């Protein structure tokens, strides 16, 4: 099972007790602290969702929490499954991974269900599958494979450009769904993959500069010159957090309600019934994008801090996985996954407390959403698979 060889030579005969020993070692090499952190996050998230969504479906207060628990279960099965897959497999089949990623996004484009002007979901009957969520993991695996394959040439700018080009395609698909949030996450995964694969600092600096100029152009300079890349409402949402008092009923409505919700939670929260921002629907999207605000309102600074600590624990253990990864590919995969989680966590929470732009990024392990839950647990499974096969 645990296969330490990259290429698969004929296996030597094993001692009869070797299987048992290997299984013991397999279990012992799991990162139990990280698993505990994830389990706590999922459990805490389910408990929070239970309180937050009591009012949302008339006649069935447990609707969301039941579904979410079901997805958590599915994700756990995926997590365990991922443990048994040597990450090298992903490297070997990276083209298939890339093909799957692009294929799913294309299918969405054709048969996707449009919800509130955005085509992101494939209706599978019992739930709405969101390929772009799953794509986050696929993109990390593919980019790591691509960069690892370049070996020493990873430091060449050409390699960087190839990676950017390869990542740009799915990112643009997602961008035009439109789903700016997920597109940004794809960008973050790309940056993380390059960063941990060993791209030179100079190239990274150039990328950062180009990125900053591009963002400035899209958000401020472009509209000022009459060139609109984003829809004005998208631009407003992205920039509203810089001045929430400017348009309190429009673009900044969500931010203001969200900040009010978070602030009103105080130290120990207002409880489920007392949390009026959530209960009376002042807080929009309180089970998905603004779930952190709802949680903060109901559980206060104490609850929010517990959640933050769990994320910190998860990411700290993730960094350990990067450090002890067996090979550059594994390290790159782990780096992309960990940074992806960090990025989503920060942008989501930051958006609810007014220090990050409003983008539709879910809070990992907490926001209601099957695709994200399953994907994140799968990603943890991949991290664990790397940890098991560490040095």
């Amino acid at each position, binding site marked *: 099972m645990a296969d330490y*060889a990259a290429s698969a030579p004929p296996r030597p005969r094993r001692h009869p007790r070797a299987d048992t020993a290997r299984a013991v070692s397999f279990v012992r090499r799991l990162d139990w602290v990280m698993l505990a952190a994830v389990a706590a996050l999922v459990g805490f998230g389910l408990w929070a969702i239970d309180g937050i969504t009591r009012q949302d479906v008339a006649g069935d207060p447990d609707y969301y929490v039941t579904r979410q628990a079901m997805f958590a279960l599915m994700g756990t099965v995926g997590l365990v499954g991922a443990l048994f897959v040597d990450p090298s497999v992903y490297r070997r089949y990276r083209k298939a991974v890339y093909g799957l990623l692009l294929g799913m996004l294309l299918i969405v484009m054709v048969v996707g269900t449009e919800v509130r002007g955005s085509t992101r979901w494939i209706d599978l009957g019992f739930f709405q599958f969101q390929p772009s969520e799953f794509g986050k993991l696929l993109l990390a695996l593919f980019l790591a494979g691509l960069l690892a394959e370049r070996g020493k040439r990873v430091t060449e700018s050409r390699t960087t450009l190839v990676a950017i080009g390869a990542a740009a395609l799915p990112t643009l698909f997602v961008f035009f769904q439109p789903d700016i949030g997920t597109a940004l996450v794809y960008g973050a995964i790309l940056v993380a993959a390059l960063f941990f694969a060993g791209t030179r600092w100079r190239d990274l600096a150039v990328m950062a500069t180009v990125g900053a100029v591009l963002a400035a152009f899209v958000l401020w300079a472009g509209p000022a010159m009459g060139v609109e890349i984003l829809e004005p409402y998208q631009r407003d949402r992205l920039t509203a957090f810089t001045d929430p008092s400017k348009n309190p009923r429009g673009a900044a409505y969500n931010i203001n309600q969200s*900040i009010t919700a978070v602030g*009103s*939670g105080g130290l120990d929260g207002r409880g489920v019934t007392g949390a009026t921002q959530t209960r009376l*629907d002042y807080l929009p999207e309180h089970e998905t994008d603004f779930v952190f605000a709802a949680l903060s309102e109901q559980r206060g600074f104490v609850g929010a801090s517990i959640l933050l600590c769990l994320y910190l624990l998860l990411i700290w253990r993730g960094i350990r996985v990067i450090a002890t990864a067996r090979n550059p590919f594994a390290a790159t995969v782990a780096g992309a996954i960990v940074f992806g989680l*960090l990025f989503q966590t920060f942008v989501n929470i930051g958006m609810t407390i007014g220090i990050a732009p409003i983008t539709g990024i879910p809070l990992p392990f907490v926001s209601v959403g099957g695709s994200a839950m399953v994907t994140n647990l799968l990603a943890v499974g991949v991290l664990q698979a790397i940890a098991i096969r560490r040095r």
Partner: protein
Amino acid sequence: MATVTRIPPRTRFMPRDPRVEEPYRMTPALALRLGVLGAIVLFVFAVLFFRLWALQVLAGDQYLAAAQDNQLRTVRVEAARGPILDYRGRLLVSNRIGTAAQVWTAYMPRRGRQRMLRRLSAILMVPVPELQKRLREHEGDPLTPVTLKEDLTQEEIFYLKENRRDFPGLELNDIHLRDYRYGSLAPQVLGHVGDVTEKQLNGGRYRHGDTVGQAGLEFSYDRFLRGTAGLAELRVDSLGRPRSKPLRSEQPQPGLALRTTLDAKLQRAAEDALVYGIEVARENDHWAADAGAAIAIDPRTGAIRAIATNPTYDPRVYVGKPDPRELRPLLDPKAAEEENFPGLNRATAGLYPPGSTFKPVTALAAMREHLVGPYEPLPCTGKMEIHGTTFNNWNPYVNEAMALATALAASCDTYFYQLGLDFYGLPPEYGSPLQKWASAFGFGKATGLDLGGEATGLLPTPEWRRKTYTKERYPDTWEVDRLWKSGDSVQLAIGQKDLLVTPLQMARFYALVANGGKLVTPHLVSSVEQPGTNGAVKAVFSPAPKDVNVDPAELNVIKDGLYRATHATYGTSAGVFGSFPVPIAGKTGTAEKSVDADGDGYAEMVDQSWWCGFGPTDKTPELVVCVVIENGGHGSTAAAPAALKIFERHFGREAPVVETGVETD
């Protein structure tokens, strides 16, 4: 000496297995990058923690207040309107609880809203466009339920309650409705309430949805009656849909009670008297008699005891969301004309030539100007020729000399023609003394009644003629008509031609005669009180009478004349009042007014029947009554018997013998 044991490094016997990949070791470069990531993680989490701390712990209270502010909406609670009482505290207008059908628009279904409205329309008998109009008026205000109909019947309430599920957003709420215990009593005086109008809203004192006095006392004393609305807090969600019952935070202050000077029983008697007077007129072939006004005031204070007008209406047509068809005679000018203007208060806004009831004015003015002595006889003849025009006396057979009192009692026209001529003959520097005195007695201007809506009447003067009859307006006749001629003075002396007065002005003048020369201000409201406490008075209204410079001796001659008019054999209304146990003095009037009484499209001169007087004359007079019956013929025919009815009610006595239909002036 310590023994140092060196552990030898493991040595390899065999070369490395080439199939085993060289284990990957962390390079310094990766370590650096991991350090960078660690720093980013620390920074990010530090920022998140501090921001959360700032929001939740440092500024938590502030955001808590903001969150609470978010969901509490303040709504107004209408105060119960104050009652209107008569002088003894009888409830003329009070409140009753009615049931209103109201809908919260936010709870109405988006789909099927039309169907729901159609069903409601059929049940409530309110047309769909009307319902839609009301919903539209409240667009953008989800916090106030829209009233579809007030004052539901029991059947409607039962049906709506049983089928509640079919009407999401519908509520049945108790509301205050105006209650008129005396039915159709004095609607033109009491007035009515209604939804605030666009114009009133612009004044700034009212708000949308307010119920405001729209006419009569309800209108003129609205500021006392309406009370102060209370406040209630309502929990709402982000769409403004209420999630709780309103919680009172500020109790509404009910409106104050209005104590009027009216006597409900006398008022009823006055209204009945008008019906009776019109009936009597018709029995005596004055078939065009179709309207009238009566007013009874206390000559000592000017307090109005009764103020009646005919035709009238039932004020209950205004209660609830009124039926437009029932309101047409009150609002639509054309329909109002067909019904002979039931909404018009003829006692205060009806304009009539006063006829002979004006003679005491002429007499007083003539004595004041020394044109005639109180006991100086003047000829009373069947007719009189003045500057080539013959003026007839109403009684063509008389031919004797009369002193003032007799002339008043017999209502001798020629006597007063002479006075008019004397006024006309005064040198120009005297001005127009008759008009000057009439004006001092309150004619030609508003009396200041607290009801509002008064007509001022017309007191013609030479100047008025000059200004009115201009070349532009009367291109054919202006050259003649602009001049004040002797005929104008002569006619004015007997209250004819251009002179127009209201019954109220007339009653005020007779009050002056009765009280010895004081001009009172007629008023309807004596005080404003806290309701229910029986006497916690907030404000008292007792306008002081104004002294008019008349000689009591001269006034006594007038009183004598008026007494003889009701008691002497030659008195014009002696047949009516002669046998009434309480001594009453008063004057008839038969005023010619240009009316199209037969409906042929051409106006003809029709007699307006007047009677004005007071009693008791043996004590301090306590009641002045003025009655006019439109097209009712002679004063003694219709108006005097009607006035008698009012006195009978007031004094609780009945006249044993009453002659009606007597054809005297």
